[in-house]
């Protein structure tokens, strides 16, 4: 049954294709498209049972693209879209009409809200029909799946306010937005939530990216280089943290360290046999115990970190779909280069159907300019520190450094919620601390041994350890004895640097 404004349909792959189809692209073609199949599978996995189609929807992002490009084409593209809302409950047109018509149906609205799975904007174009898409994430599976880069999105459906926690996604169109533009656009939605920065449209991002470096015509857009990605990040008032991946860079721990505080991570990877691609990592799956022995080339040294417990990330890949699995695979050599880890997702060889490997080349993180000390800086200090600490922990299984960026407010919230009886707890709550800090905890299984906070706003050369908390008195005593032992001064200075050794002496006294 239909009204002029909306249609209500049961959810199936065929119905989804039919709803997205337009005068330029048929249901039959869409039915065989991998991206639509991915969306159908995703929605079925989150228990989609029905959908409401808003037939006459004005989408701000599409309108921006429309005014920048499509309106100037000879062909008359439509300026209005369809918006598809998904629900994990059976709905009928009568039911929806009643909800719209009768204002006081609180219980029914609550049911509708609890069944809401998000929406998809279907653009009236020959390709790139998947416009702004906001979908509910998979359930947490007892804390394994984490989606820290989501935020609440509101959708107003004929006056009924619905909300869903997600991160916006859209398909690349190769006109105004290639993959890097879409990856940036997704990231900027979350950084706006964290830092209060701007959220330009995809067309604006492509334009900003090309303002300084412009090797070829910016539109139609066929891609951005790393410099242009950095320019686009700068245009919204953030700095681009760029890490060149080599065989000793623990990519899973690096990504985790930013994702845990809600910062999206842009993974630049070579898709086997195809080329460089950008994926916005938005979440991760972390297990109770290590799932791999190594997150770097086994010939390299790396302190044991939380990345060893991560088996997959969830990323917005504009060639695949939202929250797609990016599975961590062991270190692999390709040509003359050895990668610390590689990834597999839904990229497949078109002829054989074999999964294609994604080789990580660079990591780009849009960060607030006051976050000057980086994860890699912290890792270097912890590598030195771990060399001495591990002398006293030889043979202890399941040692792990959990390193992540945090804010003073988040840290104090964590402190208040913790059941620790550490003597410093109250002092720390009452102490003024830097706005951004790196929080590093050394654990043996579930037991915290050592914890330190590194001032992210300082300079790395100063060994900016804000404070250290010892959770194990014997370890502290052993460590301190070594630090004050005169015969060890030379080797300690060589391992830790004289300045860091002095800081540690004071902190353990």
């Amino acid at each position, binding site marked *: 049954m239909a009204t002029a404004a909306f249609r209500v349909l049961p959810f199936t792959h065929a119905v989804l294709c039919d709803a997205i189809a337009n005068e330029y692209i048929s249901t039959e073609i869409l039915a065989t498209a991998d991206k639509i199949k991915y969306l159908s599978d995703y929605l079925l996995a989150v228990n989609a049972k029905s959908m409401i189609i808003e037939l006459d929807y004005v989408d701000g992002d599409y309108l921006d693209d429309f005014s920048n490009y499509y309106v100037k084409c000879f062909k008359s593209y439509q300026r209005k879209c369809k918006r598809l809302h998904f629900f994990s409950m059976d709905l009928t047109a009568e039911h929806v009409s009643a909800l719209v018509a009768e204002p006081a149906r609180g219980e029914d609205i609550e049911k509708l809200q609890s069944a809401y799975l998000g929406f998809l904007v279907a653009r009236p174009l020959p390709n790139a029909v998947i416009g702004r898409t906001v979908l509910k994430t998979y359930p947490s599976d007892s804390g394994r799946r984490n989606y820290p880069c989501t935020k609440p999105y509101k959708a107003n459906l004929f006056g009924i306010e619905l909300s869903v926690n997600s991160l916006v996604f859209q398909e690349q169109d190769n006109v105004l937005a290639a993959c890097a533009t879409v990856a940036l656009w997704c990231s900027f939605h979350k950084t706006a939530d964290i830092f209060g920065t701007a959220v330009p449209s995809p067309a604006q991002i492509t334009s900003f990216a090309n303002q300084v470096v412009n090797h070829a015509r910016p539109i139609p857009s066929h891609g951005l280089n790393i410099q242009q990605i950095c320019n686009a990040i700068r245009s919204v008032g953030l700095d681009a943290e760029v890490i060149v991946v080599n065989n000793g860079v623990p990519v899973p721990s690096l990504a985790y360290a930013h994702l845990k505080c809600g910062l999206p991570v842009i993974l630049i990877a070579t898709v086997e046999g195809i080329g460089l691609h950008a994926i916005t990592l938005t979440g991760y799956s972390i297990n109770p115990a290590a799932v791999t022995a190594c997150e770097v080339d086994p010939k390299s040294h790396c302190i044991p970190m939380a990345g060893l417990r991560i088996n997959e990330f969830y990323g917005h890949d504009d060639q695949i779909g939202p929250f797609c699995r990016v599975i961590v695979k062991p270190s692999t050599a390709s040509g003359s280069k050895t990668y610390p880890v590689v990834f597999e997702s839904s990229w497949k060889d078109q002829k054989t159907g074999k999964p294609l490997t994604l080789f990580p080349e660079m990591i780009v993180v849009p960060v607030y300019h006051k976050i000057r000390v980086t994860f*890699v800086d912290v890792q270097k200090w912890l590598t030195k520190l771990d060399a001495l600490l591990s002398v006293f922990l030889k043979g202890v299984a399941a040692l792990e450094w959990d390193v992540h960026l945090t804010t003073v407010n988040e840290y104090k919230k964590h402190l208040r919620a913790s059941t620790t009886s550490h003597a410093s707890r109250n002092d720390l709550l009452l102490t003024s601390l830097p706005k951004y800090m790196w929080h590093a905890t050394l654990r043996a299984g579930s037991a915290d041994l050592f914890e330190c906070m590194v001032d992210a706003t300082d300079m790395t050369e100063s060994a900016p350890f804000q404070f250290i908390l010892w959770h194990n008195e014997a370890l502290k005593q052993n460590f301190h004895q070594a630090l004050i032992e005169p015969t060890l001064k030379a080797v300690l200075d060589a391992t830790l640097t004289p300045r860091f050794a002095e800081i540690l002496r004071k902190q353990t006294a």
Partner: protein
Amino acid sequence: MEKNERALQQGDGSSENLVIRDQSARSIETELSLRLERVASAIHSLDEAQHVTQDNLQLEVSV
């Protein structure tokens, strides 16, 4: 090398059979000397990861 193994009570009150090894100055020096090279190598690798070249900046992300 002197080696004492002790089961310790953890700071959060939970009991873990964690072994902290007391080490003589000599054995610490030996252990650290052995670690120095791989620590230096790891740090060199991380230094390189922070060194973004013009070639890196020109990489075209276009798939």
